[in-house]
Structures are given as structure tokens and as C-alpha cells.
């Protein structure tokens, strides 16, 4: 059990990069970008093929990031210059990328288990540092039974996710960043302040999908394979992370929201891991579980809000009745009743 949770936190940190990308398109640009399902695999495929081909895994990962950027820009072009509806341009890119990804890999699955990947290199680097031993002995002293193979991946991936978060935070506060945020918030306004909204959308979608592909490349190396089907439902997973994160950690400011997205991504992995432990659920049910989680995260906050509203109304009604008992007219009472 602890091993599974530990693994889900590790994976959550890697998927957090994808979730940050989804946050950029969905929340900042207000653009429901379904390219994600395709660009995630593009990242994985490019990295996998390059690693198998003998390139440095870090170079392969960075190339994957650029490929994602290009895919996002294409979606942006379809939408802004081709005047295609936002959802549709994402779907079109997603479907096109499916074939492109197959072309990149040349087959539907590229195994990486025997290759030297960024993950194995980082693990080796970490073990040289000897921090693991220190943590292990600390945990041993605390008397906890569970000892993971290495802390390296977890810590390094968390550092990476936070680095991405901080970069996004800073970027969204620059002049260009502010203009991108305004594009998602009020397009008429930003256009009247000399911003080319087409270009900003294209760039924003590019950056978003670059993060997604980067995450895809790392996930392929973490899992030990790239598969053409690994992106199915990725946008929903990203969305689930964003929504869960925002619901639990809040999203008042950008700094808070991006932190919430990382938290949401990790939490999502934990929830799925726990859900799969339920006896009657199978691995194949994962997408269904994801859908249920997202639906829950979307509906629950509203239900809670409604419940609070009702309670407030009931209290007001009770107070009004009390005053009414002292001989006041029932008019405002009727008003309260009628608008409940």
C-alpha cells in the first residue's frame, strides 16, 4: 500500500507538468484545448524514438518539448487564422497527431526498459549524492516500516514541477504574460490596447502543449515505454487535476492556483490508486473513475454552495418571523419566501 501511494506521488509530480499546461489553456486562455490527448503522446514518441536511436535522453526530452510547442501553435493557427471553433481545432489536431505519432514511432509501442533514460540517469545521479541513505536512516529512526527504492525521482520531479510553476508565475506577470491573461479574460479590451490576440493565443497554446509534451516524454521514460494510446483521456486527467486542486487549495491568485494544480495532479493520482484498490474495480475502469472524479469535482462545490445558501435563507426567514410576531406587516416575509 505505501509503495503504491509513493508511486502515485512520483507519477503525480510528472503529470503535474501536463496539468500546468492544461491550466494555461483552460484557465488562462479560456480555451478548451483537446490537442493535449495528442501532444502528450507526441512528446512521449519523440523522446522514445530519439532515446532508442541513441541520442542523449535529456536532448530527446527537450526536443519532445519543442514538438509539443509546434503542435500547440498549429492548433492556435487553425483557430485564429482558420477561424475554426476552439473545440473543433483541438479535436482536429488530436486526431491528426494520432497518425503523426504512429509515423514518429513507426509502430504503436516503443519499449524503453533496457534503455538509458533521463529517469535512470537522474536516479544514478541522485544515488551518487547519498541523500537516500540519510533519509532512510532518518525514517528508520522514526520507526516507519516502508522504505522506497529511491527518493530521487520523487524529489527531483517535485523540484521540476515547482520550477515550472515558478516560471509560469513569473511569465504571467510580464507584459506578454499579462496580455495573454487579458486575452482569456476580455478579448475586446486587450485588442483595444494594441495586442495581437491571434499571436498571443498561438503562443499561449504553444507553451501549454510544450509542457504537456514535456510531461509525456518524462512519463514514457518513467513507465518504460511510449504507446500510441497513452494519451487517451489525458485532457480529462489534466482537467481533473486543475479542478480538484482549485477546489481544495483555492485559486485566488496565480501563484496559489499553479500550486493548487500541482497538488491536484498528485491528489488525482492518489485517488485513482486508492480507487483501484476497491475490490470490484479493475484497471480498465480507470477512465470511468476519472470521469466520475471530474463530475464530482464539478458538481460538489455547487451543491455545497446551494446548501449554504438555503441555510442562510432559512435563518433569515426564522428571524423575520420573530420580528413579525411583534405585529409588523408580513410583506418582507413574503419577499423572502418568494425569492427562495
Amino acid at each position, binding site marked *: 500500500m505505501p509503495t503504491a501511494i509513493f508511486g502515485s506521488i512520483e507519477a503525480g509530480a510528472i503529470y503535474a507538468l501536463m496539468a500546468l499546461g492544461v491550466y494555461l489553456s483552460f484557465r488562462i486562455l479560456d480555451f478548451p484545448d483537446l490537442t493535449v490527448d495528442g501532444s502528450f503522446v507526441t512528446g512521449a514518441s519523440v523522446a522514445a524514438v530519439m532515446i532508442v536511436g541513441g541520442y542523449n535522453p535529456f536532448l530527446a526530452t527537450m526536443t519532445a518539448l519543442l514538438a509539443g510547442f509546434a503542435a500547440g501553435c498549429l492548433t492556435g493557427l487553425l483557430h485564429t487564422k482558420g477561424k475554426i471553433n476552439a473545440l473543433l481545432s483541438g479535436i482536429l489536431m488530436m486526431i491528426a497527431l494520432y497518425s503523426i505519432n504512429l509515423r514518429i514511432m513507426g509502430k504503436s509501442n516503443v519499449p524503453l526498459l533496457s534503455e538509458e533514460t533521463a529517469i535512470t540517469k537522474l536516479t544514478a545521479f541522485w544515488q551518487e549524492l547519498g541523500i537516500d541513505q540519510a533519509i532512510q536512516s532518518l525514517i528508520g529512526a522514526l520507526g516507519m516500516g516502508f522504505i522506497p527504492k529511491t527518493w530521487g525521482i520523487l524529489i527531483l520531479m517535485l523540484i521540476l514541477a515547482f520550477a515550472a510553476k515558478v516560471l509560469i508565475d513569473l511569465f504571467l506577470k510580464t507584459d506578454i504574460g499579462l496580455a495573454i*491573461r487579458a486575452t482569456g479574460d476580455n478579448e475586446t*479590451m486587450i485588442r483595444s490596447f*494594441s495586442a495581437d490576440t491571434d499571436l498571443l493565443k498561438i503562443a499561449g497554446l504553444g507553451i501549454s502543449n510544450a509542457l504537456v509534451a514535456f510531461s509525456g516524454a518524462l512519463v514514457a521514460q518513467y513507465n518504460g515505454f511510449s504507446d500510441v494510446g497513452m494519451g487517451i483521456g489525458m485532457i480529462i486527467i489534466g482537467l481533473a487535476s486543475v479542478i480538484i486542486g482549485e477546489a481544495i487549495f483555492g485559486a485566488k491568485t496565480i501563484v496559489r492556483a499553479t500550486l493548487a494544480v500541482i497538488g491536484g495532479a498528485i491528489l488525482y493520482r492518489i485517488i485513482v490508486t486508492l480507487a483501484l484498490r476497491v475490490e470490484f474495480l479493475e484497471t480498465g475502469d480507470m477512465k470511468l473513475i476519472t470521469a466520475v472524479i471530474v463530475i464530482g469535482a464539478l458538481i460538489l462545490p455547487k451543491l455545497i454552495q446551494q446548501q449554504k445558501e438555503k441555510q442562510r435563507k432559512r435563518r433569515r426567514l426564522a428571524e423575520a418571523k420573530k420580528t413579525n410576531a411583534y405585529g409588523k406587516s408580513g410583506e418582507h416575509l413574503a419577499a423572502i419566501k418568494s425569492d427562495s
Partner: protein
Amino acid sequence: MLTGKVVNILLQLNQIHKVFNEGTPDEKTALHRIDLHLKPGDFMTVIGSNGAGKSTLMNMISGKLIPDIGEVLVDGTDVTLVKEHKRSRLIGRVFQDPMAGTAPSMTIEENLAIAYSRTMARGLSKGVSKKRRDFFREKLEMLHLGLENRLSAKVGLLSGGERQALSLLMATFTEPKILLLDEHTAALDPARAELITSLTKEIVETYKLTTLMVTHNMQQALDLGNRLIMMDKGQIIFETNEDQKKELTVEKLLEEFQKIRGEKMSSDKAVLI
């Protein structure tokens, strides 16, 4: 261009003509060969009934629409085919809807930073630097609304009047060549409208902005600015210069309109006042 640098004319519309839905039963000539010249510092008010072509005229200047015939020149440069966002480096705009001119989920200072970088190429420097923040605070004091103490409040939390005041400031404090005001007080209650009107006057005078203001309110059209035009059916049907405008009253304006449009008067009166 043949016209070259025309001294002393900041905004020049030559023979602007626009037909909507051409060749269909809904065909409508929105603007009929309009000529308009504004000198630096001119403040022109535009009145006219619904469908007179006032908004189309504004959209021609801002670049939202492109004329079928004719040309738009700003400071001697032909901008007829220059895209809206590029043109807005030169042109400040305030819309009728108080929600339209600001980004609600961003803070006051972030909105001001967006307006501040209107005239430059946006880069990766910090949007709200300390220096800029001081500048914003100083500018916000002009509004007398206490917004200078709420720099990090989200604009969505402000009232309609406050948002419109902020929009006005954002459109003007970078001193655009031309300021377009499109019925910018029409959606506000009388007290707020009064406030925005007086702020408009103050700001336009401070920066000596060349301004074009569309309004439905005749009294406002007379109180503000040094020139006035009346539009109807895509044409300018009445125009006054500075001296004539001082003499004008709402009654005289209505009389003038009646003389030109005769029988239509009774139905338009309600709209115009």
C-alpha cells in the same frame, strides 16, 4: 501617399463609404461618403438617432471595420488597411459597456500595466514594476475614487462607475493621438454618468486629447467639446464650428433637426434627448 503629411489635421476621413449586406434584401448604406477632419486638440461630439451610422463611424476609425470606399488618415499616415490592434497604439477607446474596457479577473494595477504597454512592443519585463506602480497610483488619484489604495483589488469587484472611470483613465493616460468615446456614460446611472462626464472633461483638457465622442445625450453633447456633428442615415446632416456651438441649446438643436428631417421629428425626439 499623395496626401503626404497634412499639417494641422490629425484625423482625416475621406469619402468613407460602407454598405452592409450588399446585394441582399437587407442591404443598408451605413455610411454615405463621409468627410471628416479633426485638428489637434479638437473635441467633437457626435449625435444622431439609432442607426444613423455613429457606431459604424467609430469602428471605421478604430479599424474594427474597413470601408468599402475612402481612406482614414491619422496624423497624415494612411491607416485604412492597418489592423485594429496595430492602430490601437494610436487610438484610445472607451466603450459603452463598463465591463468591456477592463479585464475583470485581473487586478487594477495589472489592468493599468496592460494599458501602459499599449504604445510599446510587449516583452518579458515585469508588468507591474515598483516605478510603474508609483506612476499608476499618481494617475489613479486623478479619479478621486480612492482606487489608488486598492491597486491589488480585482477589477471585477469594482462598481460599474468605478470600472468606467478606470477604463477612461486606461484609454487616456498614455496620451493617444485620438480618443474615441462610444456612448461611454450611457449605461450608468445619472450620478455616475455625471462623474464620468466631468472626469472626461478634466482628462481631455489635461492631456489636450483629440477626441471624438458619440452620445445620445444632447445636453452632454453641448456641454463637452468644441465641435458638434449630427448624423442621420449615414450622412452628416448638421455641423457646427466652435463659435456656433457656444450659442447652441438643446431646443435650437432640435429645431435644426426638424428643419432638416421634418416629419421624422416626433419619433426621433424621444431617442435624441
